[in-house]
């Protein structure tokens, strides 16, 4: 249809490409500028590098830990815990939402409790979990699950109940029952919702795992952060905070 690209179109494309390049360069430049400023301030003594550390010290520390392999162990454990709790949250979220959907009475009874549990500060719960479950990975996983699971159930249940009632009517008119509604309409129709919910949950799970590791762990990034701050090795702490950013 269109063989000739007009001059205006070419100019538009060129302008857009130039803008995208600018965005890419700008991002890298900003990172470099922050690191340079940080390093320079530490070297020039504008900030106390014992408290604030510096990029070069973080780099050296990372190099050292990479050589003895300890950084991979800790990162691996944190990732493992995060994934484990993430799958549990997804599973419990879907099962919980389906159970709530299956009985309106039960869902109305439980609703205020779920809202309350969801708004509860989970980091406050973590010390109690240690007493209950012990100083181990179980505590960390339960802490991480508790951060994300209630919100997940509420969001999914909300999605389930806002399904078009005519789609439900269609299933009934074809001779289906409530289970068919779940199988044919609710679950397949909620896939986009479940995926967007999963995106939120993976972040929340990492937060929960780190909280758990702060309090009860022998390994993991959260453990390293606490360990680092206790032995006053700022470089440690910074490096792991960064690492968490990258995992996300």
């Amino acid at each position, binding site marked *: 249809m269109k063989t000739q690209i007009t001059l205006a179109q070419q100019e538009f494309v060129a302008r857009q490409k130039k803008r995208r390049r600018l965005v890419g360069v700008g991002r890298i430049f900003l990172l470099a500028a922050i690191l340079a400023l940080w390093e320079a301030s530490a070297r020039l003594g504008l900030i106390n590098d014992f408290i604030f550390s510096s990029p070069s010290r973080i780099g050296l520390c990372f190099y050292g830990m990479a050589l003895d392999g300890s950084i991979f162990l800790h990162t691996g454990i944190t990732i493992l815990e995060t994934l484990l709790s993430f799958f549990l949250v997804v599973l419990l979220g879907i099962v919980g939402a389906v159970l709530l959907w299956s009985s309106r009475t039960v869902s109305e009874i439980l609703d205020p409790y779920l809202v309350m549990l969801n708004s509860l500060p989970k980091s406050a719960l973590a010390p109690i979990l240690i007493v209950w479950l012990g100083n181990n990975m179980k505590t960390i996983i339960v802490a991480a699950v508790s951060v994300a699971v209630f919100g997940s159930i509420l969001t999914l249940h909300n999605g389930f109940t806002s399904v078009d009632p*005519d789609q439900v*009517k269609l299933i009934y008119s074809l001779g*289906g029952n409530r289970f068919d509604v779940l199988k044919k309409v609710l679950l397949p129709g909620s896939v986009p919702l479940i995926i967007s919910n999963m995106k939120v949950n993976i972040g929340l799970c990492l937060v929960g795992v780190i909280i758990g590791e702060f309090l009860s762990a022998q390994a993991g990034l959260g453990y390293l952060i606490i360990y680092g701050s206790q032995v006053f090795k700022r470089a440690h702490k910074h490096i792991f905070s960064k690492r968490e950013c990258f995992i996300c």
Partner: protein
Amino acid sequence: MIPKLQVKDLSYSYHTMDGETEALSDISFEVSAGEFLAVVGPSGCGKSTLLSLICGLIKPDSGEVLLDGHSVSGVEAGIGYMLQKDHLFEWRTIFSNAALGLEIQKKLTNEGKKRVSDLLSVYGLESFADSRPSELSGGMRQRAALIRTLALQPDLLLLDEPFSALDYQTRLSVCDDISTIIRGRKKTAVLITHDLSEAVSVADRILILTRRPGRIKGILTMDFADKSLSPLKRRNCPEFSKYFNEVWRILEQPGGVL
């Protein structure tokens, strides 16, 4: 001969915390096999409720619905229901959408699958069997929805304003298309509509309901000289405007049962 569908003294009320709303009151009529009945009435007169009752989706407060002389309780296999929108699921192909009813009733045998493919090819959707609903036009989607209903081989079709979601031009041709298919298969049909000209062009008889609570205000037989006319052709007949005006007149009559 036993009529295909008998509705006897049907009444139904909706209940909410704010009170009771009487939707239908003392509805009685019969539809004989192969007949096309249209139901018209002001909006909110309980037309859709009537279909839900006939289909067995809800239970009447009093009265009963008989299909082939047997009382309808719960959803019957012999009744097909077409809703206002096609409700084809985007996560299914056209074929598996059309086979949904069979799948739910656990009748998706090789024979069932063949029936669905045959229907798709008879009604020109063969090449779209593996397409997603969003790739089809509004008229083709409504055809696919009809095939989903026909695949269950119902004797009685309930149509709840199945064309009202379409734009006017599509609506005329889809209405023509669907009703020709239904007549061609000699199915009995009850069509709910608020479009009077649609009712006159499609139906053998028109049932006119009053304002809420819906009661029967009148029943009008469409007696066209040529019985085999398609809805679009009927619109050009001299009788068309006569019946249209007649339906209009009955609807406008203040209150009272005819």
